[in-house]
């Protein structure tokens, strides 16, 4: 499924004196399962708790302690796999990955090397402006997180916090199917949206609940694949992109100077924007993986899988297709609306009982613009979806014009209140009474005979009269009615 033959968009090539290069990127995403208990112990997973308070005897690897699989986490991994349209393996197993480190009390991490719970899949990833790529999924497996080593509290000691130790992670490994930092970012964005739709991971990158290891190599466009380096533990969209850019240029420079890339693990320094060696290939651990004898294989029945599948929420791709086919939205508008679960839910609430396209335009142009500008999350919007639904409703039944609608929205944003009430109280209702509009128009025509003559000459200047009417009516006159009456009076 690996699409080695796909060559990057020319705009993504890096061009130097020696010619063009393209970047090959594969990602390993670590997504923390949104579970209240750890993967193999009943310890809670609350973020930001006092150090070493979310730790059981199992997490601290006391002698004789045994892991017991948290079935909820298994279910979330399966749901995520289904969301990625990936193969769900009805037989999977846990393996031990052995290495010594103080924040790994067992001396091994329980992971799934040989038989992951989820196998290959495919994800459609939307780029800007309606382009999209397909990214192959290699696998998804469950594993334990390690604890945290804190090196800067004491000059001679390292402190260890085991709160995170044993928390369930889904490691999602992509094929090397991305060709630029923007594609990589789009993939992460899509995956993040997906897990948030499913509720299997909260996607909070700041808290480290979703983080990425990035594999980067460079090659001449369409040429032989190069040697890759892995950049560990990137926890923001920006760092992912910067690290890729830096790393690609570093590799190109080495190659152009006649050097070779060493396959190694690197760290990204967020202060300098550079990557540096963490571990060379020679220093790579021999993890001595073998099946964990404390745990039984995970066997999933078809019946159980069918029940999980039936219970999945509508996912972004399906939702987008529905918005396009049933609501008549454009591909682009639909992708923006489904790009995260909250946005889509908000839209559906606004669109309920309203003209779907009008609702989409209203949100995309007005509401999202305002939220972006004020840097407010949609969940914290001072204007609720219900209020927006009322505003859109009033636009479509011509109670107010689009222009007045913006005013009403601003009032709601600043002072709160119910849109219909605001329109009523402040007399913002659109005037659709043709008699009243006609009277206004007659008055203006009478007062401006020269302009009236001009319009008869040049019909395009009718807009001047429209402006006058709107001014007199304080924007409340129905623009369509105004246009019609003006045409009848001046052009017929």
């Amino acid at each position, binding site marked *: 499924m690996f699409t080695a033959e796909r060559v990057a968009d020319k705009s993504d090539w890096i061009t130097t004196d020696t010619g063009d290069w393209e970047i090959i990127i594969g990602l390993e995403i670590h997504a923390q399962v949104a579970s209240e208990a750890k993967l193999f112990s009943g310890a809670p997973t609350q973020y930001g708790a006092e150090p070493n308070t979310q730790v059981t005897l199992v997490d601290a690897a006391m002698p004789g302690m045994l892991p*017991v699989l948290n079935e909820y986490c298994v279910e979330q991994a399966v749901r995520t796999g289904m969301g990625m349209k990936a193969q769900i393996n009805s037989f999977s197993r846990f393996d031990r990955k052995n290495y*010594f480190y103080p924040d790994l009390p067992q001396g091994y991490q329980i992971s799934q090397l040989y038989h992951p719970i989820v196998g290959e899949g495919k994800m459609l990833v939307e780029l800007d402006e309606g382009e999209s790529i397909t990214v192959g999924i290699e696998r998804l497996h469950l594993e334990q997180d390690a604890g945290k080593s804190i090196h800067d509290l004491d000059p001679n000691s390292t402190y260890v916090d085991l709160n995170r130790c044993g928390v369930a992670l889904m490691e999602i490994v992509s094929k090397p199917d991305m060709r630029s930092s923007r594609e990589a970012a789009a993939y992460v964005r899509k995956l993040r949206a997906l897990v948030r739709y499913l509720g299997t991971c909260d996607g909070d990158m700041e808290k480290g609940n979703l983080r990425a290891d990035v594999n980067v190599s460079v090659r001449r466009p369409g040429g032989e694949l190069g040697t890759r380096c892995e950049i560990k533990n990137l926890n923001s969209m920006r760092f992912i992109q910067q690290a890729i850019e830096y790393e690609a240029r570093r590799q190109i420079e080495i190659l152009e100077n006649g050097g070779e890339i060493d396959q190694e693990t690197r760290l990204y320094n967020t202060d300098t924007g550079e990557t540096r060696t963490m571990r060379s290939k020679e220093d790579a651990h021999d993890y001595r993986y073998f099946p964990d004898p*404390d745990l039984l294989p995970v066997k999933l029945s078809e019946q159980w899988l069918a029940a999980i599948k039936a219970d999945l929420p509508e996912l972004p791709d399906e939702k987008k297709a529905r918005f396009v086919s049933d609501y008549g939205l454009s591909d682009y508008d639909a992708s923006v609306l489904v790009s995260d679960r909250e946005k889509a839910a908000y839209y559906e609430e606004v669109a309920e009982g309203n003209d779907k396209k009008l609702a989409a335009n209203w949100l995309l142009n007005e509401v999202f613009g305002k939220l972006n500008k004020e840097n407010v999350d949609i969940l914290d919007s001072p204007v609720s979806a219900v209020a927006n639904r009322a505003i859109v409703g009033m636009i479509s039944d011509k109670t107010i014009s689009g222009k007045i609608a913006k005013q009403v929205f601003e009032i709601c944003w600043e002072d709160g209140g119910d849109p219909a009430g605001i329109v009523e109280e402040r007399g913002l209702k659109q005037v659709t009474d043709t008699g009243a509009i006609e009277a206004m128009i007659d008055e203006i025509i009478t007062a401006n005979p020269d302009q009236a003559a001009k319009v008869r000459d040049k019909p395009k200047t009718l807009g001047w009269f429209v402006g006058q009417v709107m001014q007199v009516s304080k924007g409340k006159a129905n623009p369509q009615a105004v246009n019609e009456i003006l045409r009848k009076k001046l052009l017929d």
Partner: protein
Amino acid sequence: MSTLNELTLAGAISGMKNKDFSSRELTQTHLDAIADADALNAFLVTTKEAALNMADASDVRRARGDVGPLDGIPLGIKDLFCTKGTRTTAGSKILGEFTPTYESTVSANLWRDGAVMLGKLNMDEFAMGSSNENSAFGPVVNPWRAKGKTQKLVPGGSSGGSAAAVTAGLCLGATATDTGGSIRQPASFTGTVGIKPTYGRCSRWGIVAFASSLDQAGPITRTVKDAAIMLGSMAGYDPKDSTSIKAEVPDFAASCTRSLKGLRIGVPKEYRVEGMPAEIEKLWADGMNWLRAEGCEIVDVSLPHTKYALPAYYIIAPAEASSNLARYDGMRYGVRVDGTDLTETYEKSRGQGFGEEVRRRIMIGAYVLSAGFYDAYYIRAQKVRARIAEDFKNVFERCDALLTPTAPSAAFGIGSRLNDPVQMYLNDIFTVTANLAGLPGISVPAALDSSGLPLGLQVIGKALDEETCFAIGGALERAADFNAKPDKWW
């Protein structure tokens, strides 16, 4: 009073029921016997005060008429079982003064049923060994000696402390664990009964792990019935151990006297190993005759992959051990020997904390799991393991249980085999197969050899069919009429 420690566990239960003596008297007698047996080095810790308190509490319960199946019975606990508030060493220096804040499920089950804890029993370090010479706290000495000799003999291992304590009258029964024969071989060396139940019968929760896929707890006692009573309390499903089996615990004690009429007993030809002492060969034949007399049919069977069992075992067990013992890193509990950096601290702590045999097995385990060797060793050993399990499945279509010797020799001299680990590993030749296949196996004392040392016979049963093991074991015990005891020299 002084003979209270010569009772069987079942005898002590009825003695207390008849008000012949109290648990306190029984317990005190055993504490005295322990105090008098330092030369055996069987107990690492005696929990005297706790024992007497538990005994008194039992006597109070008895006065109320509210007693459990093991009420008032003083037991020894192998030091591999974590005991709340009592130091637990696994026979190693590396755990230092580690004192668990929790109680293993198996020992907790015993206390639930009223038993009294006398203390913790010596063992081979991390249960690795067949002679108890690998304990960081010195070897356990077998109470048995060859006729007219004073040479100190090993009690077998790794549950050497358990076996020695039971045979010397230091406790009425003891917990033990068996990864490749560590219950049955010491039972054979000390003239006691030991059963390794089906893998998953007893919870492994709170037992310091050696090789997780092979480790099983079981009792060592003086009689088959005692073993059945004790196992009845130890066994049971435990949700804290994912490999524990959800199965009812039958009335094991009732099965000890069950008729054997019509049972087919398999005798595997591959267990007739080269160099096996004639006395063991003869004992095996006696065993067949005794069972024939009980109405059993003896059938020759073949377990063709037997010869690969020991090599497979010595790959799988060290592989799991190398990983299970990684947690002893000097970071959170136990011994830490500081080095100049983290790696050196690990190396020094583990290098000095673990004994030679444990270090050897960790090295073997790390080797067989390492890149490039995993397929050739570990994977191949697992395939052998599957074949061995299949061998048993096939023979159990033709017979109900198997009869074999427990060990290829009687107890040997302390220090006599230390220089040859492979010779030492051969001790497990008849016992490892049951661990690899997860099957129950019981060792019953059946005779003394010409030098006056006990020898055991082993019965291997079908999975979850300990009852047939007890039934056959009971019959062997009656037929052999084994009631020899070591002369007290300590």
